[in-house]
């Protein structure tokens, strides 16, 4: 199992620099975390819980105050490895407008591989592949500012994909998007993970997105409070609420029904599961 580890946090703490004399509290407190190759991990947490800091630490943009982070065995505190670490772990940020560099979609996607000094023909191939896998190939000659939010964000994801990183960390990529845009981006991420085996770390505060992950990590004030499959994590209603989060809608409804005496299982996550369990309840005479 040890070989499968892609990003490894060993007792990591981090604190942002303060403008005044009093130091700020730790943003990340003694975190131990192991993200394995091919996983689809969702990181949940309310604002200021340290989840974005986690992304910047994994990408060597920030160096830990104490502890070590290893990406494929490379120490992120070692500045000479920065370049290689960023070729392994790519980050997509929240605001697509502020991460698109070029004036034409395909040129923006080519930006990363161009920086890596790759042959023009190979760049062409990678750009086309990346745009196809996020479903933006028809838009390759468009100007980014004329695209919708979801489309821009998919271009940003393609830009990281074209660098062929093993892992993509997405820092609230859907926060600024409408429901349709969110679904487009979510589908693109799932496809990358399932079809191309890219490790995905999705930082989000939408529960319904986290449900689709293989593994969910819940953060609260710089610590990891829950870590497990969505089913395991969302069964812990109390801890989730203490972390300032809410359960997915269907889970909330199931819990409420259960409290009022309906015989519902406590591990319901998706609408389909809910419908199935509810039907069983009704036909089995489970209601009251």
């Amino acid at each position, binding site marked *: 199992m040890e070989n499968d580890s892609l990003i490894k946090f060993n007792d990591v703490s981090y604190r942002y620099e303060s403008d005044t004399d009093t130091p700020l509290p730790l943003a990340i407190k003694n975190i131990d975390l192991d993200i394995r190759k091919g996983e689809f991990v969702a990181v949940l947490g309310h604002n200021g819980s340290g989840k974005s800091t986690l992304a910047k630490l994994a*990408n060597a*943009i920030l160096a830990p105050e104490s502890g070590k982070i290893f990406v494929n065995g490379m120490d992120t505190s070692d500045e000479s490895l920065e*370049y290689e670490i*960023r*070729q392994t772990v*790519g*980050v997509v*940020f929240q*605001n697509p*407008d*502020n*991460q*698109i*560099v*070029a*004036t*034409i979609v*395909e*040129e923006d996607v*080519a*930006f*990363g*591989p*161009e*920086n*890596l*000094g*790759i*042959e*023009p023909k190979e*760049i*062409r191939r990678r*750009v086309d592949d990346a745009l196809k896998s996020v479903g933006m190939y028809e838009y390759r000659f468009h*100007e*980014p*500012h004329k695209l919708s939010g979801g489309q821009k964000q998919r271009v940003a994801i393609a*830009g*990281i994909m074209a*660098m062929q990183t093993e892992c993509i960390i997405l820092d609230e990529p859907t926060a600024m998007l409408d429901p349709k845009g969110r679904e487009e981006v979510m589908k693109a991420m799932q496809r990358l993970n399932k079809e191309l085996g890219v490790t995905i770390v999705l930082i989000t505060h939408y529960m319904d997105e986290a449900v689709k992950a293989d593994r969910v990590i819940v953060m609260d004030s710089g610590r990891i409070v829950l870590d497990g499959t969505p089913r395991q994590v969302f069964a812990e209603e109390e801890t989730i609420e203490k972390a300032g989060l809410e359960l997915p809608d269907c889970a909330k409804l199931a819990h409420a029904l259960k409290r009022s005496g309906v015989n519902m299982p406590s591990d319901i996550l998706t609408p389909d599961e809910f419908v199935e369990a509810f039907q069983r309840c009704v036909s089995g005479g489970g209601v009251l």
Partner: protein
Amino acid sequence: MVKDITIGQYFPGNSFIHKLDARAKLIVTFIALIEIFVCKNFFSLALIFIFSIVSILISKISFKVVLKGLKMIYLLIALTSILQIFYNEKGKVLLEWWKIKITSGGVNTAIFMAVRIITLIFISSLLTYTTSPTALTDGIDRLLSPLKKLKVPVDTLAMMMTIALRFIPTLIEEIDKIMNAQKARGADLETGSLLKRAKALIPIFIPLFVNSFRRAYELAFAMECRCYNGSNHRTRMKTMKFSWRDFVAFLWVAVMLAAIILLNHFFGAVI
């Protein structure tokens, strides 16, 4: 209102001029601009003026668009021409009133100057109308690349240009948003004296600047994440190649230069 800004506007197309290599287009435009200043009489000037009109026709860009580009500077054209009338005292006197003397030489230079400026605008705007901003910066980057040997950071300059062009529409959108936000708060941007209106712009520009710095910061992060480090190891996805069209264009301006010099030689100079 702000959407009227047309700096570096590009009209995609498929014409001969659109298909020219960006480097060739830059060089040809540069030579053509020099040729405008080489012209000494109406014959040579007419030649280059016709050249600019023919080029616009070939590019299939509508004349409406090109004339709209002139609108911004018609005052400049008028002013320069009028000044020429008064300052030139050569030739026959056409009109004399008090201390002002209008001569045929003055009128000639006035017309000459006006046509010259118009041709200048036609040719230079044709470059931006028919070349995508990316191709243009790429072309400049490649043309200037010999300067890298003199330690001029050509790559970095080209990247700065690309980013500036990339953010023009974003910032224009943002100005619109801020203006609406301030109007919603009761800001009065359209009435009052010039000074008052200028003052009303302050609450527009301060948020704009603050936001731009935030954007720059985030963009820098994102660029770092994509392994940009300003070094010379960068490669390009698109390679540029000269084609027969580019040689035709070069030949065209070369022949024109020769013709202009001949016309200058055989006919008397206006200026």
